[in-house]
């Protein structure tokens, strides 16, 4: 039983999801931090939905949306000649939605703790909004960015229900680690199941220790500043 194709695929999926989420979640989290728009709670609720929805619900809706009967599925089919379901691109879209709150929320927390005073100081010194964001907000939110990256990567690595619904279990294209574990148990291949499960367990645990260490440093730094 060769376990490497599934691992490699999972790592590719998680890395790309993380990068796309950085691009989407950063402006979204910044907007949510700064806006006085009355719609904000609505958008925040939408972003947090994947935290509480069963992945199977998300997967079911995505399977329906990706069907060639629907606008999204039909458009994709016209552009690429292939269905969105059962493709790596389909999994990537699913993962971005599924891990969105894990990127947005740490960034929002970080941006909120930057504070208005520092930004105002930067503006007074003649920095434009983009310059202020780049040279003040980003360095001060470094830990938030790191946490968002690590969590969205790890969460994508652990997804199962969504992939099961829209992946189609194609080796090298959509057969990720969690699906491989499921298959291994179903075919009574407990050696493979143990290997992959133990690997994921240890990796996830280390990731979370890293996140909590970061947060701990953050807290002690704030206490020191007071």
């Amino acid at each position, binding site marked *: 039983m060769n376990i490497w194709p599934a691992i490699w695929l999972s790592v590719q999926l998680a890395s790309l999801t993380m990068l796309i989420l950085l691009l989407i979640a950063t402006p979204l989290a910044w907007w949510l931090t700064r806006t006085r728009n009355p719609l904000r709670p609505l958008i925040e609720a939408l972003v947090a939905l994947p935290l509480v929805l069963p992945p199977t619900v998300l997967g079911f809706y995505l399977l329906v949306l990706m069907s060639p*009967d629907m606008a999204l599925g039909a458009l994709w089919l016209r552009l690429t000649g292939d*269905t969105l*379901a059962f493709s790596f691109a389909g999994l990537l879209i699913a993962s971005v939605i599924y891990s969105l709150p894990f990127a947005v929320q740490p960034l929002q927390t970080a941006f909120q703790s930057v504070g208005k005073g520092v930004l105002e100081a930067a503006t007074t010194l003649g920095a434009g909004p983009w310059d202020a964001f780049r040279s003040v907000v980003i360095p001060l939110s470094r830990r938030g960015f790191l946490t968002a990256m690590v969590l969205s990567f790890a969460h994508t690595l652990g997804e199962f229900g969504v992939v099961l619904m829209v992946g189609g279990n194609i080796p090298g294209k959509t057969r990720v680690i969690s699906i491989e574990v499921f*298959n291994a148990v179903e*075919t009574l291949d407990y050696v493979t199941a143990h290997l992959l499960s133990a690997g994921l367990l240890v990796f996830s645990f280390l990731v979370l220790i890293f996140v909590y260490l970061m947060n701990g440093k953050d807290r002690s730094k704030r206490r020191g500043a007071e």
Partner: protein
Amino acid sequence: MRLLKTGILALFAGLFSGAVLAGEVTVAVASNFLPAMQEIGAQFRQESGHTLRIVNGSTGTLFAQISKGAPYDVFLSADTARVTMLAKAGKLLEGEGKPYALGSLVLYARDKGVLADGIQASLLRDDLRHFAMADPETAPYGLAASQVLETLELDVLVMQKAVIGANIGQTFGFVKTGNAELGFVALSQAMAVGGEWLDIPPDTYAPIVQGAGLLIHAKGNDAAREFYDYLSGDAARAVLVKSGYGVSE
């Protein structure tokens, strides 16, 4: 008020008298057989007065649960191999289990006209994007589908268009949602939902025999044995045939 009291008393009396006579059976059933099982179960409840609980899941998952001591009385597998394995592991009350249903494989399409040219031509069409089949390693209908492709010498030509469902239910869903144009599914599913399908010649795949076993958890449970025997009776067989299964002799 008095009427209410009498009613409540009568209700309790009914409950207790029932509890003395009626037994409880828990049946673990492979998901492909669930609709037929629900119908057989409803009849059995009515005729016997016993309580019957139905647990469904994939054959592999149920097998793993039973191996770890899950409290099921009867196991209705999608294959015979798992029942034989349970027998070898000493998880059956007696014997080697028995066949209870024969599955038939069909090539299914949601939309009209897709299957107009027959099995081979439909699968070989250039503009076919995906056909769905269940995992040959875990699902008996998936194994049958891969045998059909081999027999018709299509496997090398079309396998790169296959999308694999974790089980036959998911495979059917891929076709039903329009994500795959064709799919190898169970006749029972096609009959239950409707659509277009072609019967696949039975000589192109090994018979899909579904096996049942009476589990050690049913020890001393007369209701469980009663249900196990009921499966081979005429009433259950009538439901089987109506649902798209063959009956094994």
